[in-house]
């Protein structure tokens, strides 16, 4: 599970001095649940998820993943986490099999167990063609499959998907969503960020709407729609964001 408390991430910015990318973000994501992080481009979603996966250090605030602090026990956090992002590409000059095996080894998996797990993953995701194909020659969908297999090879309790379906065709995106749902059913704790409403509506149990570094609202989709008296998620999202846009800007935002 994931606990985020009062998370702040600020950068030095040549134009505006301090620039706050993430401002006092607080949320929890529980096992067996898909937590959707919904927000327009530049809302600060990627920054939050990068902090969750220990790539960035928070300016202030507490983040714990599966009971480990992301600053103090960064290695343990990474060991119990699978991270799939638009920025986590796969190596061009490695085959799908080599790619997944390499990360399995880095996760400290014994060779025999790793081989079994990989056979299982490659079969489940129908990745026979990726097996001996170099990353550079794969289609976008194949690459994303390899990425997901890479992130879950060590069977982590927490998985983070940052815009994992961007750039995929309908079929490939659907496969990714099915995988995410399957992982939820296995009892994993999942954070899923997206700006595509239909995806979020389909799979997320719980959502947080983010804009300009802040969380504007959290709750179940149904609960939020009722709370804000809107017709559907898209209307709700639009309403929340435009309401926020009319407020004065505290810190300049806009980082991907």
């Amino acid at each position, binding site marked *: 599970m994931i606990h985020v408390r009062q998370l702040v991430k600020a950068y030095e910015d040549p134009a505006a001095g301090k620039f706050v990318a993430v401002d006092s973000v607080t949320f929890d994501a529980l096992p067996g649940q898909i937590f959707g992080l919904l927000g327009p481009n530049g809302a600060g979603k990627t920054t939050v998820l990068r902090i969750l996966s220990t790539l960035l250090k928070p300016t202030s605030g507490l983040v714990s993943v599966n009971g480990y602090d992301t600053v103090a026990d960064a290695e343990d956090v990474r060991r119990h986490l699978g991270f799939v992002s638009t920025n986590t*590409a796969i190596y061009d000059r490695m085959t799908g099999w080599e790619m997944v095996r390499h990360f399995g080894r*880095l996760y400290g998996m014994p060779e025999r167990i790793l081989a079994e797990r990989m056979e299982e993953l490659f079969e489940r995701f129908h990745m026979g063609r990726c097996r001996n194909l170099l990353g550079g020659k794969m289609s976008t969908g194949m690459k994303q499959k390899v990425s997901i297999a890479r992130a879950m090879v060590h069977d982590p309790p927490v998985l983070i998907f940052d815009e994992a379906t961007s750039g995929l065709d309908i079929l490939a995106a659907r496969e990714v969503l099915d995988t995410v749902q399957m992982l939820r059913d296995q009892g994993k704790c999942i954070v899923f960020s997206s700006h595509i409403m239909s995806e979020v509506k389909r799979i997320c149990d719980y959502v947080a709407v983010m804009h300009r570094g802040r969380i504007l609202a959290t709750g179940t989709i149904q609960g939020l729609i009722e709370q804000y008296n809107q017709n559907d998620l898209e209307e709700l999202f639009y309403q929340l964001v435009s309401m926020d846009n009319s407020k004065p800007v505290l810190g300049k935002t806009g980082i991907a």
Partner: protein
Amino acid sequence: MNWKNTKFIFQREIIDQMRDRRTLFTILVLPLILYPLLGSALLHTAQFMHRSQSIVWIIGANKLPKTVPLVENGRFVSSLADFATIENIKVVSDSQEEIFANELRKSLARLEPVPSRHEQHARAISNSSEKQWLQSHMQANQVDVIVWVADEIGPSQTDDPQSIDQIASVQLIVNSARDKSRMTALEVQKLLGNWRAKLIEDNFVQNDLPFALAFPFAIDPIDVVDSTIQQAATWSKILPLIVMLWALTGAFYPAIDLCAGEKERGTLETLLSSPATRAEIVIGKMMTIMVFSVGNSILNLFSMMLTGFFVIQHLGSASPMNGLSMVGAPPLNAIPWIVLGLLPVAAMFSALALALASFARSSKEGQYYLIPLLMCLLPLMMLSSMPTTNLELGTSFIPVTGMMLLLRSMIEGNYSNVVQYASPVLATTLFCCWLSIRWAVAQFNSENVLFRSSDQFGFGLWLKQVMRDRDLKPSLGQAILCVVTILIIKFFLSLAVTMPQSWHEFAKQIWVVQIAAIAIPGLLMAAILTRCAKATLRLNTPRAGLIAAAALTAILLYPALSYLGQIVLHLYPPRAELQKVETVLAALIDNAPGILAVLLVFSVVPAICEELTFRGFILSGLEKLRGRWSGVILTSIFFGATHAVFQQSVMAFVVGLILGFIALRTASIWPCIAFHMTHNGMTIILSRMKHLAASDSPFTWVLRETELASGTRIEFEPLAACGMTLAATVLLIWIGKQKELSNPTPIEQVELQPHFSTPIQST
């Protein structure tokens, strides 16, 4: 540190690089084909290297003596030079062929030849139109050199005492703008010299005189060095340079690909999200780069030596490349040493390249970042191949250079030298290697470096940022920038400054250096880069008595410092030319209008300028170092470095330490200025007022006069000096205690609160 992860990363990177055709080609294939191709090009061009024939005209050949011939069948006589030279020069003399235009004769005849003993230089033909005429005719007839025999050559037959001193003149007319003409002229000149020697010999023989009268001795150089050692000496300069250069260039491409390339392709984030720590990633990547660096270097070495071996063997016999015979076959037994020495240096190069490449977001950017590395390391490499650089204690501490000199000694077989300096060289190399790795790891731990967003750079924007973000006091970087600025201005001033001729000029020079190079950078930076120039420069008034105490300390500490100065002079005696300069300057100071003027120039102005900048601006910045005292030490090192003469630098460093102490403890610049002014003033007063030490002076218990070879010097009585030093120490301790009493600078506690929400956990 989990070495297993490092191993996995290393293995993956190696496989990845091996699958990249471009890397494979530049690192592995290119060295193997480059040298054979170069060798074949060399062989091909060698056949064109036979010089085309030079043509020499001799005008007035009939005036040459018949006894010792100069020309034979259209060539110079073969005994005058080596075969190739003789064959290369075609001689046309007017007695053989009537090809000379009458104008040429007339034109030359118009130039009144003046008998001269200095035949080395072509006669100055003053008339430029004649020069032009000659030049065009030489070009038109393709003549390289004209030898003009103006007078009858031979022993003067007359007994006229007037003509005994006169010698005939032979003029060489040369077009020095053309290489061929110039080279031919040199050959002809040498040839004529040889011919003249034969002529002299003949003259002596004819007149039954001993030849030794003209040539009392011959010069025969004997090289005690055996040809193989000579060859080793040549290789010892080439091989380390080649090896290091290729090691550096071999590290570039993989470093860019492994860092900027991964960022570009988006795989870096994948790797960073794995449990491998940044250090494990860096070491794995560094080892990969090192493999390619060492591999590239060794392959180049191997290929070059192999090709060189055959090319030299082939050309060794052929005449045109005589110089190569000195090179000989490369020494194979040196290879293991070279490889051994290469390893730590390659590790350092790899770590440096990785650290620098981590700044880059794309491969293209990576190239920009690595050029400065090349710029910094090239001089270090070149330094080692300079003939004047030798392996000694000083050079063994220079990174890269030391290792290359060690390798050089090893190839030369100078093992005693190797054993003596191996440990400092290795220590330096390993230390630099460790530092580079630390830097690379730090780079990978820095978010700003790894996740740099592409913000546009504008000068105005940057300036705005600097002004907005400026602190109360200067930052570390700004302090160092100030030092660099001072050093650069001083460098250019030292180039512009000439040896002063008068006291006024000397005084002016000191003013200019103090104000332009030292005071202005410090004051300007304090005004622009800090929000509180007053706090930066420590302009606040100190507690009463502290200024006087500092001045008194300077007087009391003077004997100890002057003893120290003498020890420094004893350990590092100044060079002779420096002493000469000092005598000249001392004479200028003696011409000063009065002691007050000297005090103003040497004590007041430097004390104010140097204190404001060094203990003011620079120390305020360097104070931010982990320990404040390391700031004092660093400031003193910089203070020493801005003094041009080494002996002065050492003393400036020591005085700088005391001044730094006073500055931090009193939190004011005025006691520092007082100390500095008094210290400088003491030197002037003691050198000017020799009568203070005279037997009737009231100071005899402190001062005494010592006779030296260069004159008298005033020294302190040892007992009095000890007492004074003790008193100075007590005073310094008292000044040190003032910290608690003096008002704390409340300004330091004012910090801007961040405008976003209060942090729960600060990182």
